[in-house]
């Protein structure tokens, strides 16, 4: 995995570098190159990351669909809930007019934390193998 496989008959690869890369450790490149060139190995890693990210996104959306999207259906099925009061205030209005916003922010922030952690794990892994 140190060497990039090069097909028969093609000219030898020439590494073209620009000044902006000179400060980087050259030892870091190989696995990144695998990713870059869609070798089987790079594909496997990237598909794994994409699948993990997509699963995370799907979890968040499922939470929203069930929690928020379930409310109209709930009101449809349970007409008594439509006029529910808490200290004289209508519960439906409090839920959809006020409470929904802080919950949304919390969900969004927790998504970003998890997505960033997934990516950091991936980045560390790539760098360790390089």
């Amino acid at each position, binding site marked *: 995995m140190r060497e990039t496989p090069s097909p028969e008959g093609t000219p030898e690869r020439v590494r073209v570098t620009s000044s902006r890369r000179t400060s980087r450790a050259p030892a870091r490149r190989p696995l990144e190159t695998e*990713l870059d060139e*869609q070798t089987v190995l790079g594909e496997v890693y990237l598909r794994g990351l994409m699948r993990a990210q997509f699963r995370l996104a799907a979890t968040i959306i499922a939470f929203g669909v069930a929690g*928020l999207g379930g*409310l*109209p259906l709930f009101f449809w099925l349970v007409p008594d809930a439509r006029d529910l009061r808490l200290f004289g205030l209508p519960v*439906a209005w409090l839920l959809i007019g006020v409470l929904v916003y802080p919950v949304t922010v919390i969900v969004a922030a927790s998504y970003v934390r998890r997505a960033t952690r997934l990516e950091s794990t991936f980045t560390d892994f790539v760098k360790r193998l390089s």
Partner: protein
Amino acid sequence: MTNDDFDAFSVAAIVLVCVVTLAVGAFGLRLSRTTSDFYVASRLVSPTRNASAISGEYLSAASFLGVAGLIYERGFDSLWFPVGYTSGYVVLLVLVAAPLRRSGAYTIPDFAEMRMQSSAIRRMAALLVVGIGWLYLLPQFQGAGLALRSVTGWPTWVGAAVVVVTVVLGVAAGGMRSITLVQAMQYWLKLCALAIPAFVLLWLWTSQGAPGPLEVAGPDADLSAWYEPLTNFPDDPYPLYSTYSTLLALCLGTMGLPHVLVRFYTNPDGRAARRTTVVVIGLIGLFYLFPPIYGVLGRVYLPPHLAEIPVDQIVLELPKAAFPGLTGQILAAILAGGAFAAFLSTASGLVISIAGVIGQDVLRPALARVTAGDSGVIQSFRLATVVAVVVPFLGSVLTAPLGLARTVNLAFAIAASTFAPLLLLGVWWRRLSVPGAFAGLVVGGGLATTATIVTVVLRPDPGWLATVLAQPAAWCIPAAFVTAVVVSLRTPDRIPVGTAKILARLHTPEGVELQSLR
């Protein structure tokens, strides 16, 4: 309305907002030097300021005036509108924010071309951006006309013209860098302009013993239709379907709005794009706490059985009804200024995106032919700015308003039926083929546009058909997705050659240096 309605305070506030907008824009102009500055603020805008700018741009006439008006008119069921506007950013965040930023594209047509490597899809996307943008500009101009008429008695085209001129001056002169500063400022302006009068009105209401809308309407009136979820209105007999279709359109439409995506390219990288989005969700959520206050207090101080006011003007009329005298006038002036900030910021963002597309895809090639490559990028952008505003301005003058929030929703539905499938499948699905993507755009766009035109022009009698056409998202979006997937699966040989490489670029985190990214 007559000239007796001339309200000097409000006019002064509106003039002040326009002048400050231009002044901050001119300040930004001194900072913007290169073409890159001009288009994307050189991608060096900090997350907090960028989030303020995104929110400032997003909160339009529909949010500032329309939502409160709808809540005043329809009650609980309208609360879903701001919820949907906010949830759209969550969907955008979890599915496309970081990959789109990493794509490095500036507009949706750029992304379409980069991902599908097809100029036909690029042109189709460009056409849709311009169409959706114009449809979305229409209520901004109409809202400005209504607002200025309610404080001066002048005809509605004057207000629209004021917004058009201010936007063209600001956008054509300063481009994105100065606009970012203007938008960020306008978010806070709008929030204060809506929040401060809301607190004063709430204080007045509680100090008067807080009569609820139910008591004001009198013992005989039945307000349960207004109070409770899922009410049957004569023109909307299927509230469950309407609620879900609206939510779907708003959740998936946000990512497809032309002025939303452009903003994300001003983030330095994918991670910053995510952090920015969370701040945006917080900022717009904070803003949406206030429109329902106006909707509910409108029912108290301007009960519909006594007051005949167009619902989109409730926010502007409420303070004068609650506080006859100077206090009411000052509060009304604050709200009028905030409303103009809303028209200006959303219109500026839309005009930037539409002008970007018209400039890049239509004018620059045309000018290059005429002047043999001698014309600059910035000149064609400035010319495109003028083209971008003239069409919706004429539309706003010549057509009867359909209601601010309703027009905006149609734009959301078209965006959700076209760009949502393109972006979601483009970011996550390896087997999307060129004919598949194209067919998805044509089917989704064709169905949603047809439904919109039938609803707006023919206005069918209330019934299931009218509801289904007025709320097209629930069937147009699945139709577009299914078409794109089925056609793609049938044309596996037309999957773009570089798909794997492009997806690697979209999903590889910052910190892993891909050579193809340089």
